[in-house]
């Protein structure tokens, strides 16, 4: 199932595609300081990305009865404190997803897939 039922309304149901959640998570990840890009989750995705732009690139969304599970695959600027950066990402992604979608986020895993070196010190 790729749709998550948000809430029951007297006229029907609200269904949210994982892609929608992924694009919100992606947006707020990219705005987080220290993140210089997203990274493919696996080989298939890296090939896929060459052919077509995908909202889920670098982001994986799943859910269970307790809430959303989000995995982020990121590139980080060399020379920054990764612990602080990932903490900020988790906070702002959780905040933005919960604010816009209204579903609780249960877990966010941040996978640092690489460092970009713009300057050697």
């Amino acid at each position: 199932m790729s749709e998550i039922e948000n809430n029951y309304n007297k006229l029907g149901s609200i269904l949210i595609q994982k892609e929608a959640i992924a694009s919100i998570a992606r947006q707020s990840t990219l705005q987080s300081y220290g993140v210089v890009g997203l990274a493919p989750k696996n080989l298939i995705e890296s090939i896929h990305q060459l052919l077509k732009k995908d909202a889920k690139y670098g982001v994986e969304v799943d859910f269970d009865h307790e809430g959303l599970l989000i995995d982020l695959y990121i590139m980080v600027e060399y020379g920054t404190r990764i612990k602080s950066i990932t903490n900020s990402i988790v906070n702002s992604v959780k905040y933005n997803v919960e604010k816009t979608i209204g579903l609780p986020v249960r877990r966010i895993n941040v996978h640092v897939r690489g460092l970009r070196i713009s300057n050697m010190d």
Partner: protein
Amino acid sequence: MSGVELTKLSPQERHKLISLPVNGQGLKTLVEAGMIWLKTNQQIVNNLNVFPVPDGDTGTNMVLTMQAAFDEIDQSGTKNIGQLARAIARGALMGARGNSGVILSQIWRGFARALDDQPTMDVKLLAEALLEAKETAYKGVVRPVEGTILTVIKDIAAQAEVSAQRTTVFTEVLADIVEAADASVERTPDLLPILKKAGVVDSGGKGLLCIFEGMWRFLNGDSLDKAITEVIPLSEMDLEDTMESVEPGQDYEVVIDFTPESTFDLENYYDELSKIGTSIQVGEGEGIYRMHIHVPLDKRYTPIDHTMTQGIIQKVMMENLVAQMEEKKTKKHPKINLAQVQPEETAVVAVSPGSGLSRIFASLGVAAIVQGGQTMNPSIKEVLASFENLPTDKVIILPNNKNIIMAAKEAASMTVKKVHVIPTISISQGISAMFRFIPDAELEENIASMVEAIDEVETGEITTATRSVEIDNVQVQKGQVIALHNGKLVTSTSNIDTATEELLIAAKTCDYERITLFYGEDMKLIHVNALADKIRSIYPDHEIEVHEGGQPHYQLIIAIE
């Protein structure tokens, strides 16, 4: 050298510490001054938080980052500025806390890279280093958000470049930088709407300003351990919330209105007050100052004596906070005594948006309350749960809102009990239905008389418009007070009193006998009583009652019967 000693130095001694061009030890002293000043203003920066995201302790995060940077150089005796800057950058990187801390560490990293192996720094090199600091800071993010600390370092770098061409005097360039940073911080709300909405400037930018300001204040001979005293407009003084937190020992709240003498010195006044108590606020409006302070019992008259020497006192208000807190605690959660139903009787479930209204419903014989209203519709499950455990199988539900009737009916269909929904669309309808309720009468009998009662009451609601719109031929501006009569928009005006008066006319109040006002959580009792007096003078033959409704959003719910 520890921070306390640094602030005790005279201006001459201070300048001696910084030999020009600035070397490693000079930079160390400047960094320490910046850190102390940031620490002094830490709380001010923390208070600028807008996001409910736990990055809200920007001031603390930046202080900790600067502290880590300083710890790295504290023992270093190197005169080589390049070496020292590298140590600062390393310390900042290792100790970077929070978003703003990471950005700050990048700023130091760029700064250090530009200084490289240089022994000293002149203004040209300072400008270059700040430019590199900005470049490095911007490289750390794909989509830089303007109106943040990034914008401030950008403006600082630009100013440094201009100033370095104008003069070779280090302090002049530093003064220019501080001025540019200050202006940049003030501009952040124009660039970032969320700041404007919250009425604050960017916290990270303010923190960065504090660091440069601290360096400049140090050279200028200003104190570093006294926070900036700011006078806020009287209207923005938030004296309600300061009550919530009473520090141990600070039992009394003293508020003094006074007109200061011409020689009045705010900073001195503030200093004196901070020796007496805590939670100090000073506000100003039309020449009158208002001072607010929390003090211990034995010092409760000291602020008055002190203010006497500073000007003419207009008014003094003193309250015992501890006693008040106790009262507030008990008042906040008074018990609601719901009716106890017997097995053969009929139970009524009412949906209520506020504690006051719940109490009124309970006093009229309601057996269960479901929290809910216009903006918070209860779920079917909540409605169901409210009556499932009652010891009777005859239940009447009063939804009291158009949007809740459906959920109530759904709940009624999901139980084996005999449940009937009386489609009340407002609180007043619900209350007037309750007036007819007789617990031991037959269910059908109750339903018939309660349904009848619904039509005998006119409902008025006073609320604030959340957006600009035109409905029922009435133009509404966002923020205006609007009046609804039986759910239809009657008028939109600037104040509650006029809205109420026009509403009463529209509801043909002359044909009825009684007006009941239920005031919401945002309304003050004094205001409601004044309004009730006004209504009494317009409708002298009517019976007028005022009750606490406690409902959110609606300042008043009015029943006319």
